[in-house]
């Protein structure tokens, strides 16, 4: 079935499984260690379920010291480690290996402190993204990055993938909103990097760690920036007769010097899927829709909207619909953020994540449709238009191996298209296993080698999440 290869499990490790588990059992209480096959099975995949590997064991430590003890043990024993947050990766970032121990941070789920005067919060890495905003929202603050999975995904995972979200157009992605981390290195050493200060003391190690896909260490705590909520926020729906018109409108809005808080795109199939689930009032008689959110006081939002509407009219906007209440706003975003899951009602899907320059959006959208059609499949497009981060959902039947192969081939074609159009393979989901074998399309051997040399500083033996990010051949060690 699977076209993405996993490394052959190390037979020496598999043979020592009982000893390894005994060693882990000496470090963790029974409720923090998963060893039976039935139970390990539940950890064999993440949100990229087409790929699955049963892990050797799953450790669910409760604090930094336990994470450090487990990592030191694995390092000593030469056992591979696959870090796991909430297991919501669409790129297979948390998929285990047979000869690896999964270290999950889901029990590290407390908010440690909130500091409004300095506009930061200190959290354990297993807290969910949304729970931070939930905790500070009553006081008028929020944590800005908002990946669609924010309800469930952990800060640890966000740091691993440098997650983005709809509102990143204005507020930036994870790296722009994290000030410090406590991280356990492969040998169990605990380091504190950054803190509440706004710039690094020396080299920007945080800039290296955020987005490193669990290959440099395991983050157990983080200091995140809190931002003050705007006075008001209002999403507006713009319906167009064609995807191209919507795409051109996006480029024109940005080009006019207006940077809305969020600018999201949905094509007709995506609108229908999301509307069926969220009943958000999306227009069903259009080919494409933009959700544009503006912020500020009532008058400010009106003024900004007037400018945006004026541009949208130039691109033949057919429907303009403003949210009229907090409930409507919540539904509009619920529909958008549930898009992937709701697609599951219709078909299985794989979700691409390439980014292209916004001027290339109309072209790439058109080509995406042609590529998917050429494989005899369907596509739904829902993505962050403001920053060109596309999410074509290729619909297929996972129980049909031939269709899966076609879907993956179409996906690879689309990603290559994104790179060729001046963009990249992944804007916010990460490389994981999914895009690993396409890395050479974006990077030269020299580029990749330099990345691997840096990686080797942290983990010279390739024990941390080793099947991911870098093509399996041509790897270099310390």
């Amino acid at each position, binding site marked *: 079935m699977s076209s993405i290869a996993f490394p052959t499990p190390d037979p020496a490790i598999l043979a020592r499984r009982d000893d390894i588990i005994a060693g882990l059992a000496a470090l963790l209480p029974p409720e923090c260690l998963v060893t039976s096959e039935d139970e390990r099975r*539940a950890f064999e995949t993440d949100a990229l*379920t087409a790929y699955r590997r049963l892990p050797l064991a799953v450790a669910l430590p409760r604090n930094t010291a336990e994470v450090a003890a487990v990592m030191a043990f694995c390092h000593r024993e030469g056992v591979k480690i696959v870090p796991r947050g909430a297991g919501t990766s669409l790129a297979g970032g948390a998929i285990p290996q047979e000869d690896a121990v999964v270290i999950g941070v*889901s029990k*590290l789920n407390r908010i440690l402190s909130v500091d409004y005067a300095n506009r930061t919060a200190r959290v354990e890495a297993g807290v969910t993204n949304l729970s931070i905003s939930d905790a500070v929202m009553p006081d008028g603050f929020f944590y800005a990055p908002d990946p669609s999975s924010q309800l469930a995904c952990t800060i640890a995972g966000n740091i691993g993938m440098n997650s983005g979200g709809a509102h990143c157009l204005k507020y930036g992605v994870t790296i722009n909103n994290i000030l410090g981390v406590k991280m356990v290195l492969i040998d169990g050493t605990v380091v504190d990097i950054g803190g509440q200060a706004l710039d690094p003391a020396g080299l920007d190690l945080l800039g290296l760690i955020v987005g490193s896909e669990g290959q440099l260490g395991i983050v157990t705590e983080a200091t995140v920036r809190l931002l003050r909520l705007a006075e008001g926020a209002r999403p507006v729906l713009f319906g167009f007769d064609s995807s191209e018109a919507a795409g051109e409108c996006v480029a024109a809005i940005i080009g006019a010097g207006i940077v809305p808080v969020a600018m999201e795109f949905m094509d007709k199939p995506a609108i229908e899927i999301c509307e069926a689930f969220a009943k958000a009032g999306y227009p069903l008689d259009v080919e494409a829709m933009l959700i544009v959110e503006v912020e500020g006081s009532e008058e400010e939002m009106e003024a900004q909207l007037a400018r945006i509407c004026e541009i949208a009219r130039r691109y033949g906007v057919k429907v303009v619909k403003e949210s009229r209440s907090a409930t409507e706003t919540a539904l509009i975003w619920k529909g958008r953020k549930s898009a992937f899951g709701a697609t*599951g009602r219709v078909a*299985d899907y794989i979700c691409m994540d390439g980014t292209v320059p916004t001027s290339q959006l109309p072209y790439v959208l058109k080509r995406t449709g042609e590529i998917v059609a050429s494989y005899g499949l369907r596509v739904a497009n829902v993505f962050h238009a403001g920053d060109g981060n596309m999410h074509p959902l290729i619909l297929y039947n996972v129980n049909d191996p031939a269709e899966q192969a076609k879907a993956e081939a179409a996906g690879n074609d689309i990603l290559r298209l994104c790179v060729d159009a001046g963009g990249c393979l992944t804007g916010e989901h990460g490389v994981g296993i999914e895009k690993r074998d396409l890395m050479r399309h974006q990077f030269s051997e020299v580029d990749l080698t330099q990345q691997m040399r840096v990686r080797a500083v942290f983990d010279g033996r390739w024990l941390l999440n080793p099947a991911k990010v870098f093509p399996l051949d041509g790897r270099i060690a310390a």
Partner: protein
Amino acid sequence: MQTNFTSAQLADPHMAASEKILRSCVHCGFCTATCPTYLLLGDELDSPRGRIYLIKDMLEGGKPATAEVVKHIDRCLSCLSCMTTCPSGVHYMHLVDHARAHIEQTYKRDATDRLLRALLAHILPYRNRFRLALGAALFAKPFRPLLAHLPRVGKRLAAMVALAPPRSPAVTAEPAPLTRADRRRVAILEGCAQPVLQPAINAAARRLLARADIEVVRVAEEGCCGALVHHMGREAQALEFARRNIDAWITAIDQQGIEAIIITASGCGTTVKDYGFMLRDDPLYAEKARRVSALTCDITEFLDRLDLPAVSTAPKRAVAYHSACSMQHGQQIRDEPKRLLRNAGFTVRDVPEGHICCGSAGVYNILQPEIAGRLRDRKVGNIERLRPDIIATGNIGCITQIGGGTAIPVVHTVELLDWAHGGPMPPALERAPGLNSRVVQFPLA
């Protein structure tokens, strides 16, 4: 998500239904975030997604349930919060019901567990047996600390006894209503435990309906809805209860023209509304079950459709409305109870983290006392932050569970509505110190 069933397996309609559910799951993990046990335990195996995976593996392999699988399925509250969250429309309820039945058929629990479950299954669904048992429990209450020390089953026995109310409620005889041909008619499920524990609830419902000139038809043959045993995987027993109730109600529908089957315990409502699914493959009952489910509604759904007069003399009581899981998740009823309470003059406050279960969940608080206790404390903490005068909810299980953790009186929504519309003060308020004395001029209606 991908599944791996043989066509022989899929010939079993139960299996086919579960396969369809599993296929709709995209394994996105959203459900983990709103699952009470995942919140407490931080282990994916104690989350819906983990359980779905355990169930998938068990069913695909055609394997008997293992102790590990049973542990995690048993920890599920069936609160169905995951179903509210799920963007893909995974019908977790039907899947976990299937798994529980599979466990019951293929897994041998240890002797004490079997005994406890049998005890519950043979007492709780039967009004008279339950009444007797309650007397015994009241007798046993002083010995609770001793009970807790019994090996294996002690904590759970102690939990069970702790749930018994402080005194055995009096059974109030009510005059049979007069029948008039032109009146609208409904039935109210009497069920099993509720009329024993809190007869005042259905009495309040009947008074409210009577004021709206709606006749409540007594359906003699009905009884437990089957939810309690259904959640223990005792499918056959559950279906027996369902068929008996269906027979009784179909007669009432056909002969007395009842327009609705009203439920005052949302836990029962979720199950009765699911009769149509539970008996879908029973040629004799499928159609009847569908009819019954279609006519079933929660008392607040029904009252919300009536034109109850607004109450002008506002009581200024702050009510924390606790939405039972079976209400908000099982039946997706959210606004009606709050709207009714507001229209009746109460100040209604939403409980933070309101989507998380209080730990009652049928007999869960007896079978899993530790998790249930932690959830109760969390719930009570969230409610008490609101400093309400009264806690209102629509499910007897929650009333008992939350009432065990707070001094704030916990009443059924309809008791407050009835009081506001001219009925007696709810018994729990009369007993509440302080609150009683402050209730001066109300009700004036």
